[in-house]
């Protein structure tokens, strides 16, 4: 069970870490200054969540730290979801990715409040306050873009259409999910789907955005250690200093 618990913490930690990295890439590029502030705030919260889960994973593993897990782990040992790895194509993609993840995080962390694992429920208790605000913000933007102009509606529709397939992974169970559910640490991923769909579909419909059809996307996912081509570049950039100067502390 311990290995699965570590794997689960890495999934949560790595997903927030990589999403935060994508937000960091967007620094100083927002459409208005207020949005630069808001999105950086979200990125910081995600980074804090990542650190909490990675600290816990490091403690369970023993003989390692959250920094070592972040900066010296190989790509195949990362467990982040594919959705968070997708690039910042434009503001619509950034927002759509954020909205899909915020909705997922809200439903997940609400359930994790009741986790039998006290560390996970504790981290979730802190995270849920942040996530509620993240979802407020991204839902507001979905409405603005969906109901704003013809161009904004086209762009957000296009982003939702193209990112939708990555949501398949969010609700697919693997052996870690089965073990976590059995040990009352988390619900099955597949059990989150209904609530998530209701929440997301309502906001999209209210925003005059069509809901794409669900598709079976892949045989292997990020949470199994099988990644998109994007992740290698993210890690090459993120890890380069600690790898280039292995003896240094930072």
């Amino acid at each position, binding site marked *: 069970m311990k290995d699965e618990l570590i794997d689960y913490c890495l999934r949560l930690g790595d997903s927030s870490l990589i999403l935060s990295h994508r937000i960091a890439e967007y620094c*100083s590029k927002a*459409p208005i200054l207020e949005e630069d502030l808001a999105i950086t705030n979200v990125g*910081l919260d995600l*980074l*804090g969540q990542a650190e909490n889960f990675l600290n816990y994973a490091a403690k369970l593993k023993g003989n390692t730290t959250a920094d070592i897990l972040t900066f010296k782990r190989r790509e195949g040992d990362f467990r982040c979801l594919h959705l968070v790895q997708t690039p910042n194509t434009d503001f619509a993609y950034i927002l759509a990715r954020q909205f899909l993840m915020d909705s997922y995080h809200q439903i997940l962390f609400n359930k994790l409040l009741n986790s039998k694992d006290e560390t996970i429920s504790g981290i979730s208790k802190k995270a849920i306050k942040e996530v509620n605000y993240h979802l407020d913000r991204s839902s507001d933007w979905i409405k603005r873009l969906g109901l*704003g102009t013809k161009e*904004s509606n086209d762009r957000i529709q296009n982003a939702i259409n193209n990112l939708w397939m990555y949501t398949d992974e969010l609700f697919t169970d693997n052996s870690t999910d089965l073990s976590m559910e059995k040990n009352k640490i988390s619900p099955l991923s597949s059990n989150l789907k209904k609530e998530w769909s209701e929440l997301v579909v309502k906001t999209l419909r209210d925003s005059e955005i069509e809901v794409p059809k669900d598709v079976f996307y892949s045989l292997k996912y990020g949470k199994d250690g099988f990644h998109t081509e994007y992740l290698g570049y993210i890690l090459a950039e993120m890890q380069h200093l600690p790898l280039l100067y292995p003896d240094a*502390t930072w």
Partner: protein
Amino acid sequence: MENERKLEEFQQKIDANIKIEPKDWMPEKYRQTLIRQISQHAHSEIIGMQPEGNWLTRAPSLRAKKILMAKIQDEAGHGLYLYCAAETLGVKREQFLQWLHEGKAKYSSVFNYPTLTWADMGAVGWLVDGAAIVNQVSLQGTSYGPYSRAMVKICMEESFHQRQGFEIMVQLAKGTEEQKQMAQDALNRWWWPSIMMFGPHDSESAHSNQSLKWKIKRESNDELRQRYINKTIEQGQHLGLTFPDPNLKFNEETKNYDYSPIDWDEFWNVVKGNGPGNKLRINHHIKAHEDGKWVREAAKAYSKKINLSKKIA
């Protein structure tokens, strides 16, 4: 006659240290000077996000990444306060951005230098923020109310930034040989640009006298520069690094550090747009602004629709 009387009353208020508020009468030149100075300050905060953002995805520890991200967010916040303070003088933010993009408004030239290594995150915090604070602490006493209040808030955060930058320098200076070299190289590259941040010598400064009389500026460029140098050299001695100026020497008579002549050719070249990063920084800002046009239009259209439906309801 009327104007002369108003001007006299205005100067009396200034002399009595009564703050000037947006709706108070003020000479047109005072307003124009503030518009120029506050917007330049706001632009500096915003353009300053770029050289630091350059290392955000490469920060070498989770702690360093969090600190840098929070710092850049603070800079965006400072920009926002300052644009708001500048808007009280009757110019909209959109106009300020247009002037920036057209090259009519300036920002601190120091941000036209590239950040080449992680040590630059230390040097920018320690030296560039360190120099900015000396100026900003003085500006807390500026005569225009909204500017002065923005400065009070900004100073609190900037002093954190400077300490965080210094912490990076300490870590590197006490680290491996390669880290020490990285820190020394960053100090070499950022020392002179940070000294130039205070602008031309008092004898050459175009706006100084009137600004001092109106208490827009509270101290002269050279006074502020000297305070920065004195303070920073003492801090640098703890790092065991060498300042790139063979003539830095404590002068027992003046109780100040003497320093070599400043390379004003370099300064004016960078001001005029020929620094290593001028075009890069402005083009980045223009591109982000243009890429965001459709988003701003959508937000406007949406808010119109919502207001309309509220009216109908």
